[in-house]
């Protein structure tokens, strides 16, 4: 397992390439080297899977051992002296040879391969071999496009047989759909008889594949990776807060990868989160402010909204996918403008199978804990939400404010609710989707989607994480926090001076005593565990976290 989870706090001192390094007992040589910035290349090793030791890429010279050792399977020992390819010709020769071996039967189809540009075989070849192949014979031919299930396609020729996908299905999902068929150079990853790779995390095997052997069926031959913008963000699907890397091209999500974070999602991601990432992008976009269905100047819309919110009882439906900063502004807004308003978090639970529960949270509420952090109070969200929804549907609700598209849960975005909203002439909605029931509101303000906003999230385990903006919003769309700030201004209240999302986060972190001393740079890499965080303390990261391989 990873160095961070070393069972013992006992430290061991060893030297790698002559540099002294102290790491917890039980750490392997790869992780120990990584902690001082020395790269040891590997394919089959993964910090959260069992050690297979089959790729032979991570060989190192350990003083006193006659043969080269594989770093993944060599735990550190006191006084151990390790030489890597950077200092030992024997090691660099062995690694170059391993690459040559891997490549002799590997097709040179980089020109059409989806992995090109983010392929470890390409990278390592340039870094550790970079010689022309001496192989003159005919390559072995294997299956080129074999569907393993509804989501994943196999190209057997590109496979380096690291068996990470097999081990993932054996050890993590425990569904064991995959295996290795045949022997020698005829070996090929195959689906076990009568099975299909259709577990709820099937797409993860593509992330784990260090080469282009496994590809997403829905994203194959979509784009070259260098034409996309890749952003490290957080999945807004549920309150697990999986770390992801999202590739976007022309406003379209073209690939979603899991990002390694040992404390959250390891390097796994559910198919719903991955393949459903684009569900947050509306097909028909609210692009301008409207009043009673007609396009209106922003000042008119805000004025009308002020009138609606100012009079009578008010119910505020809040999306659970907003940022902590938005909730903090909402709190100030409610306190300053409408302290009797009923603030309801749109929260619904769902039932999950035992397998789904290894990662997925039983909600659609990415920032449930963030809401509770900013707006302490009743935690019986589902009951309050369904009661408020009932009131809305029956027409007895008076003024209503919708904050974000998920202010109505996915399953509540129904025709009944749309009709109730149409009949109610005292509704304000900050949403992005024109087909949303709340688009029938009296005032509609164009708002960002969860993918278009940077900011803080707190996951169900109370981990504070920073989500980057995956794509830019249309020019008129603003975050709910900004709309609230503008509305508050009309009530004579100044909530925030921030211009950008980043300013807002900085402003918020500077003003929140419970997060004293935190900066975005400290939160971004792995998040901050709020259960152990003491305000004012600067969290120290002793070990560098493994970077994503695939």
């Amino acid at each position, binding site marked *: 397992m990873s160095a961070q989870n070393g069972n013992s706090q006992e430290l061991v001192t060893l030297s790698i390439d002559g540099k002294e390094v102290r790491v917890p007992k039980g750490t392997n040589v790869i992780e120990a080297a990584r902690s001082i910035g020395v790269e040891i290349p590997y394919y089959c090793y993964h910090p959260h899977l069992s050690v297979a*030791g089959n790729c032979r890429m991570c060989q190192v010279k350990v003083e006193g051992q006659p043969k080269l050792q594989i770093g993944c399977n060599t735990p550190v020992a006191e006084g151990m002296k390790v030489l890597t390819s950077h200092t030992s010709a024997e090691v660099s020769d062995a690694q170059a040879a*391993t690459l040559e071996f*891997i490549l002799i039967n590997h097709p040179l189809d980089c020109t059409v391969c989806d992995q090109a540009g983010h392929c470890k075989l390409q990278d390592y070849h340039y870094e550790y071999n970079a010689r022309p192949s001496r192989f*003159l014979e005919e390559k072995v031919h294997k299956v080129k496009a074999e569907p393993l299930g509804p989501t994943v396609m196999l190209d057997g020729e590109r496979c380096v047989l690291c068996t990470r996908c097999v081990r993932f299905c054996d050890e993590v999902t425990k569904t064991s759909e995959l295996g290795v068929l*045949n*022997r*020698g*150079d*005829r070996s090929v990853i195959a689906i076990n008889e009568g099975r299909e790779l259709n577990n709820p995390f099937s797409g993860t095997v593509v992330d784990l594949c260090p080469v282009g052997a496994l590809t997403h069926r829905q994203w194959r031959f979509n784009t070259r990776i260098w034409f996309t913008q890749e952003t490290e963000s957080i999945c807004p699907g549920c309150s697990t807060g999986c770390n992801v890397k999202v590739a976007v091209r022309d406003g379209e999500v073209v690939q979603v990868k899991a990002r390694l974070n040992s404390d959250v999602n390891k390097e796994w991601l559910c198919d719903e989160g991955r393949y459903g990432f684009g569900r947050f992008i509306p097909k028909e976009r609210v692009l301008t402010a409207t009043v009673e269905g007609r396009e209106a100047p922003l000042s008119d819309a805000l004025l009308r909204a002020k009138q609606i919110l100012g009079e009578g009882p008010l119910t505020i439906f809040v999306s659970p996918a907003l940022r902590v900063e938005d909730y903090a502004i909402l709190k100030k807004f409610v306190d300053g403008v409408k302290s009797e308003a009923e603030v309801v978090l749109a929260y619904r639970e769902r039932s999950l199978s035992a397998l789904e529960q290894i990662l997925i949270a039983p909600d659609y509420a990415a920032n449930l804990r963030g809401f509770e952090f900013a707006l302490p109070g009743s935690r019986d969200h589902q009951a309050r939400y369904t009661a408020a929804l009932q009131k809305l549907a029956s027409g007895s609700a008076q003024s209503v404010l919708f904050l974000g598209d998920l202010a109505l849960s996915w399953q509540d975005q129904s025709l009944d609710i749309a009709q109730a909203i149409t009949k109610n002439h005292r509704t304000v909605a900050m949403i992005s989707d024109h087909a949303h029931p709340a688009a029938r509101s009296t005032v509609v303000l164009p708002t960002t989607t969860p993918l278009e906003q940077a900011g803080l999230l707190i996951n169900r385990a109370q981990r504070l994480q920073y989500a980057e903006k995956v794509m830019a919003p249309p020019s008129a769309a603003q975050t709910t926090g900004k709309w609230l700030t503008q509305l508050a201004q009309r009530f004579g209240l100044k909530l925030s001076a921030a211009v950008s999302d980043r300013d807002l986060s900085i402003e918020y972190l500077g003003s929140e005593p419970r997060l004293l001393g935190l900066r975005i740079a400290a939160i971004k890499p792995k998040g901050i565990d709020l259960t152990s965080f003491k305000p004012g303390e600067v969290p120290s990261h002793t070990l560098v976290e493994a970077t994503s391989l695939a």
Partner: protein
Amino acid sequence: MGQHRQILLKNVHCTDQHTIAGYESRGGYSVIRKVLNMEPAKVTEEVIKSGLRGRGGAGFPTGKKWTFIPKGTDKPVYLVNNADESEPGTFKDRVLLERDPHLCIEGMMICAFAVGARFACIYIRGEYAYPYQRVRQAIRECYAKDYLGKNIFGSNVSLDLVIHRGAGAYICGEETALLESLEGKKGQPRLKPPFFPAIRGLYDSPTVVNNTETLAALVWILENGGEAYAQIGTAKSTGTKLFSVSGHVNKPGVYEVEMGYPMMQFLEEECGGIREGRKLKGVMPGGSSFAILTAEEVAKATLDYESISGLDRTAHLGSGGFMVVDDHTDIVEVALNFAHFYAHESCGQCTPCREGGHWVQKIIQRIARGEGLAGDIELIDSICSQVQGHTICAFGEALSWPAQAFIRKFPADFKARIREAMEGRVQHRVPLNYEFQAAH
């Protein structure tokens, strides 16, 4: 002809030796009765004293191997008799299993008693249909007489013995791949370290894996004492060894000789010399996994571990699969045969062996076809150097050592064929066809 004490083969010529009655009429199952009254540690001590080394190929001291079994473990201890005998040129265990199965079983009883194993298994080569029947029959006879099962021979020791047939994979002779196979998985060697079979073997429990010949030798050692066994042979290679002789000799077969016997004398006297009066070209004394010895080296060698390894670091007494080639043999064809074998039998788990084995095979095949190129010999040498020592199990050495020895010791054979090709004198050679179809 040398006078060799017959420890293992002394009764194989008796036609009823495979029956329990025949075996017992020649003193069978008397040693285990004696051993059952000894201290288990004393048994191990005798074996250590005997200097017996594993006969499967690696030559590791047997008694020492047993001492690795943790004392006072709460897990069951298993004993596995490695009768996979998949090494090319090796058929010595077959004789024992077929002609004297009770000797093997009695040896297993001794070992099981010494290491405290309650369950034992014979993993027998899948192709050994007849020996399988013989051993199965022998096990049944033992159960019928309560020699196996609960309280064997009326003692308080119990031992259950099963026989399991392999499915024909060479790699399942490697002890950890054998254990994987026994557990019902694909036969692939395990990573060592962290756990060796003696600590976590079969079903994660301490396991002793010994070769059939090793186990069979225990009967004589416990009957006559470890010191008596150590008197035979040389100081470091004690006792007798079975050699399964094949190839271009007049009298191929299985011979039991005392260690330290001159190889040339063995070849000339026991094996009857090279067939048709030809000259010796080379000998592979320990199966296909080690280097070939040239005629000059054979003249200097004696049949023991130290002498052979001393002549060539990559040569070894190995399993005693003694293959002889005469001077009419083209080493290119021999090398091709071996390369095919190793390419076919690689389990495919780790990169150097999976890819390197096939690469070597394809190059040698090209040379054999008369399409060799300048630089091919150096290329084979280079590939072999990068396979050995870089794999999970010893298969990497097994495929590269012999190939390297062929090209280094008999470069003329290879160069001749390559020169033909380079000079345009390709003769449309058709090498022996070992081409296998892809398995799917």
